[in-house]
């Protein structure tokens, strides 16, 4: 196998592993969905107990959901970077 073929093979392996990594990183997107749903459930329970606190609870949950959602966003960004920017392709002289 000549050098050129070796380089093509190495590049293909790196691209494949990057695609796998992107898929695995998207597992992180599951958490916020579950967490936000749970938070809303608990907030509704609290509102039923103390209706006068609804405004404060809504604002706090609103901000909390935005913060929780960032975790999913990070995994999406990592997946996109692995797929489109391919930072590992040029590593090791591939």
């Amino acid at each position, binding site marked *: 196998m000549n050098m050129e073929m070796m380089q093509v093979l190495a590049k293909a392996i790196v691209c494949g592993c990057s695609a796998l990594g992107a898929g695995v990183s998207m597992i992180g*997107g599951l958490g*916020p*969905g*579950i967490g*936000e*749903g*749970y938070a*809303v*459930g608990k*907030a*509704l*329970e609290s*509102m*039923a107990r103390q209706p006068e606190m*609804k*405004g*404060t*609870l*809504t*604002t706090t*949950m*609103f*901000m909390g*959901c*935005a*913060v929780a*959602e*960032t975790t*999913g*966003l*990070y995994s*999406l*960004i990592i997946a*996109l*970077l692995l797929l*489109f*920017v391919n930072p590992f392709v040029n590593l090791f002289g591939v």
Partner: protein
Amino acid sequence: MKKNSQNTVIKETKRMAFGVGAMTVIMLIVYAVIGRFTPAVVIGAALGACYAVFNFYMLGRTVAKATSVREQDEQLATMQLRTSYQMRMIGMLVLCIIAFALPFVDGLACVIPMVFPRLWILILQFTGQINDE
């Protein structure tokens, strides 16, 4: 009560839009300093910032809608929020793929502003502006 929730969402979205806008300008300045400032970067940054604010507004609307349902509809509220989250994520994914695919849009500059809401909330918490309410 419903109108109050809407007003809160609009107020918070305005505050977020200001923060995301300011951070996007700082990002563009950094791009200019490192010598990578191009029209594609400006378009990408504008797209990313607009989507970040839109995403925050949609989150707020969904939270306001979910909290306006009665206690016995807890399952419905949970499902509403999960569906909204998934739709917003898909929208973000589509936007990012378009940004990376189009030659006149810088993909990285489009992705970076999407984490600015988190940073802005951190700043607001740090300065005590969230706790004041």
